[in-house]
């Protein structure tokens, strides 16, 4: 009996070591173009709410993490083919995405999405032209509404489309649009908001449940001791938990 116990313990230890070895470096995939969630700072490094959050989560889960940028359009295919291990890119948890990858628990509340338009413009939500970033919950929302959807590969291009009149308004996360509206006199947020999505979570491969569990535990511990709320407040991202 004793030898069986010892044997099991030894097996458990080697398994943990083997697992720790397999994820000795966790590669964190992000977009780097969606402040305040993630962006490239002046020094050329990944910065923002998710950078701070991700570094803290890795510290709590005792993982060594490395940041990688990838364009939004191919961010899921590159995760499933193993080019990096997580997606931490302001990605809302949706059923469609959940069929392809797994999500950790959400680390933001569902953030209201706002409309940004030229200051003083009248926007027709049923027949107008609304811009959104491709493959986002906002794009799916517009597509199912009466308005005409124009999609762009980067968030920045959606704003440019409103400025040059290609679109009447842009629909995106409130946290992304608010600083832009505040600093540009020619742009303004509309009163109307949409509540879509189930909050933002980290994406991991479906076969990688151990990594998911580690991050879930780390997110839970940050929720419990209030550090997550402090981060959300610092970067002005929606309500806390």
């Amino acid at each position, binding site marked *: 009996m004793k030898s069986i116990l010892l044997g099991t313990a030894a097996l458990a230890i080697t398994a943990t070591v083997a697992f720790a070895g397999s994820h000795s470096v966790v590669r964190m995939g992000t977009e780097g173009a969606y402040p*305040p969630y993630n962006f490239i700072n*002046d*020094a050329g490094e990944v910065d923002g709410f998710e950078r701070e959050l991700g570094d803290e989560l890795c510290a709590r889960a005792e993982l060594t993490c490395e940041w990688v*940028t990838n364009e939004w359009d191919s961010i899921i295919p590159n995760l499933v083919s*193993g080019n990096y291990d997580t997606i931490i890119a302001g990605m809302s948890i949706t059923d469609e995405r959940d069929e392809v*990858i797994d999500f950790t628990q959400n680390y933001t509340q569902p953030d209201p999405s706002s409309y940004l338009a030229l200051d003083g413009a009248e926007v027709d939500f049923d027949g107008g032209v609304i811009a959104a970033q491709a493959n986002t919950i906002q794009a799916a929302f517009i597509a199912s509404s009466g308005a005409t959807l124009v999609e762009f590969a980067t968030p920045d291009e959606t704003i440019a489309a409103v400025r040059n009149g290609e679109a009447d308004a842009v629909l995106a996360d409130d946290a992304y649009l608010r*600083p832009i509206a505040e600093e540009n006199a020619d742009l303004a947020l509309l009163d109307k908001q949409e509540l879509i999505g189930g909050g933002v979570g980290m994406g991991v491969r*479906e076969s990688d449940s151990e990594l998911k569990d580690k991050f879930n535990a780390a997110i839970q511990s940050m929720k419990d001791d209030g550090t997550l709320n402090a981060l959300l407040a610092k970067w002005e991202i929606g309500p806390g938990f």
Partner: protein
Amino acid sequence: MFSFCVDPASLDSMAWMACYLTTGKHMAIYTSLFTVLLLLAITAPTALVFGFLGASSARSDFAPLSWVGKAYIAIVRGVPDIAFFLFFVIALDQFFEWIRHEIKCPDWEADIWQGNDFVVCDIAKLPLGNSPQWMHETYGFLLAVLTFAIVFGAFAANVLYGAMRAVPHNQLETAESYGMTRSQVFWRILVPQMWVFALPGLSNLWMVLIKATPLLFLLGVEDIVYWARELGGAKTARFTDYPHGDWRMWYFLALLVFYLLFTRISEIALDKLMIRLTHGQATLGGEAQRKTA
């Protein structure tokens, strides 16, 4: 970078610009410029080798070899570049990893394809998951070089195949009647004379290759066009010390100047090369040179 860059908001426009253009983020676009040039420098000769092999096998007398050469030219030339880049690179990467997986982890029991996930054992990963970021970038870069070389090699093969057929046949017959072997005829008579016929086609390919480098971004290599878009986009003061409006037009204007200069220099160099290759050739150009001399 400069010592006076501590508080950018207080600077006048010239100093502000000097600081702005030397941020770490701007260093990335300068580095990507060298990435593009390096890619061209490695890809062009590699593609030429691929093309030479393709063309010489396509005109081989040994039927299977000739089929391989012709199939390579026909298939790669027929598939749209963008489809080739999107599909082929991921497939190539997974193929390499699968081979390493079969060799290094023969005891592995789980499936390689688990639903949507492609999972090989960790020591078969290319590069290893725990290797530093620069190794991942170098690997991506080499995959890009290989893909570019295969695509442009097929076009070069077609050009060289045509050029080999353009060498006057009686020259080859004369060489044979002098008692040269087939390989001697190929290397001493055919190859030296074919370049003058190949150069116009190859110079076209070079021009197209220069402009095809933005396809790099499809392969995850951050090239100058990506950085021009990223740096040129409007920046709000909350997230940068250097806020500015939508400056993409200026960045793309700079790219335009860069590409125009680059293609112009290439044209001049290729014209010089043409004059050298024409020298002493039994072509109209060679004849004209002989008369003026």
